[in-house]
């Protein structure tokens, strides 16, 4: 019994899962923090009134201001983005988690429950070992390993092949859904990049499915994250057992008329009347939650036996139906659905499919490592990543006996040892990055932008100093590059979006309501600078100016 228990928490899982989980969450979070959160900052510090998420936090937290909130979310985004590309995910996840949690707990404004979920997810990320793309997918520079893999390709079962293709194909479909939902907002550039990714993914799925050994890793943090998400679905299912959900009325309330076509179809094709359809849908939602919960609960065992693949697939489809359905219904829940789609893909799709996807998404980084070996960041002692071959014959029997089917560790990945690097090779680029990052913050034209940039620079300086003290200045280079790219990505993302417009128009609106005309005028003036076509706040700005002048005149005449 204890052996099974230990196997659940510490047994081998496909190394690609924690790798993609941490990097994917950090990357999505970075853009979520930059694009979906700063515009809400205008509501902070109105009339000095605030309530934190917990009463005790009121004693230690300052009254949040727009500047503080923006600074926290931008800085957390910079850290998350840097971690997604440069590694050292464990300390980055901790720092991002602390900042993010501080951000949403500082006020009850952020009442979406997915903030709480993301804090738990970031805790899960912090408990996972930091792995690099070389450790997980192998380095293109590592010729002996490549040759060994080519000489002895791993035998693959039909379930593996089928699962890989189906998994990658579905991954591609989800990417298409994401494009369809976000085309309007993301624009053609992003759509083109996504289409390229889609093409590459489909190519790998159907013409060049990856062969060769999978790599596994023991990571109890992964099982912890899996159980945590299962708990969320379990309780969500419980909350849906209330009468209104069972009767289907709640779903009707949420869906409005969007369920009507399906109801008509059920009526015409299946002869199902309305009184049956809606309760069935209501019960369906409850069933979906619990099916997904079970899927996550057994997700750590997903790669160990093909029998676990069946509930994995069922849970995957259930999760997709629920979260893509939520997007279809246009629920105002931020990016929550996409976090859950991402986690469902990583936890519930077959490891072989994720391996294929992972090889594609990490290809640019590994290609850069070939072109610019000096930038290569895979420099640490090898993580406990093992390369495994699909067991056959005696090995299979042995594996079964060990209840860790098909994952007998064989080879530890060889990683080139770090070479010492002189201070002068790191400091100029480091200082350059420390200048660029605050400049990006200033260019944002948001309160707190400069401080966020300076904060990121200080964090980067501390990191570089730490690596130099560890005689691994070379190891600081990927982080320097990632921090610079993060700052540029932040500036670009915010510049092409409506974040600044939304922030300033909301600030103007709030000041207008409170009759702070001068502040309202300044806010609307800035909102107009970033206003999309046809959405100018000229009228409100003029009104604020007139009121401001009237007030001044009244004040002047009064004195």
């Amino acid at each position, binding site marked *: 019994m204890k052996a099974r228990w230990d*196997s659940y928490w510490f047994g081998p899982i496909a190394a690609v899962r924690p790798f993609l989980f941490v990097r994917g969450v950090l990357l999505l979070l970075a853009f979520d923090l930059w694009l979906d959160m700063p515009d809400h900052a205008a509501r902070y510090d109105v009339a000095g*009134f605030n309530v934190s998420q917990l009463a005790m936090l009121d004693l230690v937290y300052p009254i949040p201001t727009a500047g503080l909130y923006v600074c926290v979310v931008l800085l957390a985004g910079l850290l998350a983005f840097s971690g997604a590309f440069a590694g050292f995910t464990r300390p980055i996840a901790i720092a991002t988690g602390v900042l993010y949690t501080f951000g949403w707990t500082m006020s009850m404004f952020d009442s979406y*429950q997915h903030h709480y979920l993301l804090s738990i997810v970031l805790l899960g990320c912090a408990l996972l070992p930091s792995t690099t793309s070389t450790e997980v997918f192998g380095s293109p520079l590592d010729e002996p390993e490549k040759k060994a893999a080519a000489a002895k390709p791993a035998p693959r079962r039909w379930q593996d092949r089928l699962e890989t293709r189906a998994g990658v194909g579905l991954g591609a479909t989800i990417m298409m859904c994401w494009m369809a939902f976000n085309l309007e907002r993301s624009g053609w550039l992003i759509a083109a990049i996504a289409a390229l990714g889609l093409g590459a993914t489909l190519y790998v799925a159907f013409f060049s499915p990856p062969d060769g050994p999978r790599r596994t890793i023991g990571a109890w943090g992964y099982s912890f994250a899996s159980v*945590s998400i299962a708990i969320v679905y379990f309780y969500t299912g419980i909350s849906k057992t209330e009468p209104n959900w069972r009767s289907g009325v709640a779903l009707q309330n949420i869906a409005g008329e969007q369920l009507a076509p399906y109801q008509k179809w059920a009526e015409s094709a299946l002869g199902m009347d309305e009184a049956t359809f809606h309760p069935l849908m209501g019960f369906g939602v409850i069933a979906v939650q619990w099916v997904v919960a079970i899927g996550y609960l057994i997700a750590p065992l997903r790669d160990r036996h093909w029998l676990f693949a069946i509930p994995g697939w069922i849970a995957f489809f259930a999760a997709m139906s629920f979260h893509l359905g939520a997007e279809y219904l246009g629920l105002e829940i931020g990016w929550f659905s996409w976090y859950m789609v991402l986690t469902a893909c990583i936890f519930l799709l077959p490891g072989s499919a994720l391996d294929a996807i992972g090889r594609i998404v990490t290809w640019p980084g590994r290609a850069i490592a070939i072109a610019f070996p000096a930038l290569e960041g895979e420099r640490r002692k090898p993580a406990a990543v093992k390369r495994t071959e699909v067991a056959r014959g005696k090995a299979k029997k042995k594996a079964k006996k060990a209840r*860790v089917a098909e994952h007998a560790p064989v080879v530890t990945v060889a990683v080139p040892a770090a070479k010492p690097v002189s201070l002068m090779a790191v400091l100029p680029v480091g200082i350059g990055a420390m200048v660029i990052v605050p400049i990006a913050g200033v260019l944002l034209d948001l309160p707190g932008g400069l401080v966020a940039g300076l904060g990121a620079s200080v964090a980067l300086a501390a990191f570089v100093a730490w690596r130099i003290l560890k005689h691994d200045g070379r190891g600081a280079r990927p982080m320097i590059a990632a921090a610079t790219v993060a700052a540029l990505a932040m500036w670009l993302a915010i510049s092409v979006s409506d974040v600044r417009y939304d922030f300033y128009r909301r600030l103007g609106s709030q000041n207008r309501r409170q009759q702070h005309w001068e502040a309202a005028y300044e806010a609307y003036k800035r909102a107009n600078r970033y206003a999309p076509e046809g959405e100018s706040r000229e009228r409100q700005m003029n009104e604020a100016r007139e009121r401001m002048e009237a007030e001044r005149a009244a004040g002047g005449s009064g004195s």
Partner: protein
Amino acid sequence: MNEGVPSGNRYWIVMGAIALLVAAQLAIPLRYYTGGDPYDERFSWRMFSEVRVVSCDPSATETRDGQSAPVELGRELHEAWIGLLSRNRDAVIERFLVHRCEGGANAATFTNRCHNARYPVCTRDARMRQAGCADLGQAEQVRCMSQVSVMLQQCEQDTRLPDLTWSIACDDRTIETPDADALHAVRTPPTDEGEVEAAPVEDEER
């Protein structure tokens, strides 16, 4: 068997951490189901719950120098805070009352008049009728819409919940909160489609 299993004390530290974190995640949402504040659904994974669709109309009055006057919420607070006040968030309401005292009031009262939109059979019917009204001629359309409006008012009346009132005496900052029955009325199951159990008479009168 499992090479990744930590050895010695580290094993028990890791297992202890797992047990603690998982237990906390199981226990925190339970707080809601074991008699906690029915309107505070945070940390309980109750997205789009029945409680969330309760619709309330908040109002506040305060007394200064013996004169009672309504508080213009829209001018005093950001609309997001008004949204949280209308969702009966106890911590926000209490902080708001204290805030009034800090602003110089002698006493303040906050009231939420709520109706339970969670049994919106009539709302749905109204929506359908509204759609039907569009096909009528102008004069008939006006009559049709006014019928729908009356119907919705009736619905609102039928699904009324007891008023919830918080009050504070600023001299000693004691806060009076709504009684538990009124607060938990939102959890009362419907007696019939489209209806909720009648609220206790004393709550209606308050």
